[in-house]
């Protein structure tokens, strides 16, 4: 006699739940536990009312959690997870790290709310880089998108594009970047309008109200004949969203050892306001729980930021 679909489905679900138990226990009693579970399902299916199903469901979950915990002594649990945990710690501290992008300075390439995995070993000087002895790596070059510690506040991680490396002469003329005398072709750059802001679009002019500490240093020491000259050991970076980007024009150069790595892949993209992404709060958690499926930008999942 064939079981109803529901009973078979629940049976499969229960078979999966058995993986919470230690292997030994599962091998010894798994089959019998499934039989028992199926028998109960059949019994309740014959009864046909909803109440017993509810009671059975809750009871089964409670039984599952309590007995799985009981069979897995905490010590065993730690033992089994230790390797995974160590690997996880190793990988996240030295190889890749997850970041969320809180501002739109790289739009449309990287959006607000994109959650990125950053490759921490691909660049020389990318963080604490003993791995460069073992793994392939290269120097940061012009045009790379990099994640780095924001020099004005190292707790924040920024993502921008490298425009100049040590020794480069850079200036902007009517939004056009000119590096060492050549006009750059920048298909990735985006401008929000035609209006010209002298500070922003004819950089470098002179330090003004918006210029931050590092930017003032830059104007004082690194501007010659209307061009910024990138000092050794640093990078000059700009956001792709050129007219709305707080970048090297405002706060100066990025020391090369502030570079964390290269954005590797967008693993999750969620439409949320900047403030929620910077400081984690309960309302944001609730928002994610409620709108996970509708406000996740599925088309951006696993996208690699265009270089």
């Amino acid at each position: 006699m064939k079981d109803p679909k529901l009973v078979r489905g629940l049976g499969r679900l229960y078979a999966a739940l058995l993986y919470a138990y230690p292997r030994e226990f599962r091998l010894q009693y798994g089959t019998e536990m499934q039989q028992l579970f199926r028998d109960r399902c059949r019994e309740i299916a014959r009864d046909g009312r909803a109440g017993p199903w509810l009671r059975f469901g809750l009871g089964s979950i409670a039984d599952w959690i309590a007995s799985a915990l009981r069979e897995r002594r905490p010590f065993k649990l730690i033992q089994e997870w230790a390797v995974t945990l160590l690997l996880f710690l190793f990988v996240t501290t030295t190889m890749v790290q997850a970041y969320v992008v809180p501002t739109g300075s790289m739009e449309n390439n990287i959006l607000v709310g994109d959650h990125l995995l950053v490759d921490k070993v691909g660049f020389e000087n990318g963080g604490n880089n003993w791995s460069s002895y073992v793994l392939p790596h290269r120097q940061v070059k012009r045009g790379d998108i990099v994640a780095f510690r924001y020099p004005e506040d190292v707790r924040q991680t920024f993502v921008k594009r490298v425009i100049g490396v040590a020794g480069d002469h850079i200036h902007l003329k009517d939004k056009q970047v000119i590096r060492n005398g050549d006009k750059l072709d920048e298909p990735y750059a985006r401008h929000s309008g035609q209006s010209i802001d002298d500070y922003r679009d004819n950089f470098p002019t002179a330090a003004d109200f918006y210029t931050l500490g590092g930017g003032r240093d830059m104007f004082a020491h690194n501007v010659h004949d209307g061009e910024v000259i990138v000092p050794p050991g640093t990078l000059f970076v700009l956001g792709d969203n050129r007219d709305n980007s707080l970048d090297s024009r405002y706060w100066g150069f990025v020391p090369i050892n502030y570079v964390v790595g290269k954005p590797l892949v967008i693993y999750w993209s969620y439409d949320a306001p900047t403030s929620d992404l910077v400081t984690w709060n309960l309302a944001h958690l609730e928002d994610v729980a409620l709108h996970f499926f509708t406000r996740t930008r599925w088309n951006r999942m696993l996208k690699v930021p265009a270089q």
Partner: protein
Amino acid sequence: MKKTPGLLPLTPPVFHILLALADEERHGYGIMQDVARQTNDALQLGPGTLYGCLKRMLAAGLVEESDEREHDREQDDERRRYYRMTPLGRSTVRAEAGRLAGAVSAAKAKLGLAGGK
């Protein structure tokens, strides 16, 4: 009667599982049904609890595995493992029942409940 100091008191699931096996060998589902009957559905053993208890009871020598055989009722395509109580199990459940009876009569005396006679 054999002394079974380390095992008493028994947890309610273990006690009722032993009672379920007192009159006959049963498989897991049979034990579960009998326990529910004994307790008026108050104790509905889930698979995890039941087999966790059986595992420890086997280790303590309170029960033993009988043979595997076809289940006799409708719908039984499967072979099932049967469990039976050992002499140690029997003496343990007796000792526990005695202990509980003692506790109940003490409670009755203290609380002035009639019914002991």
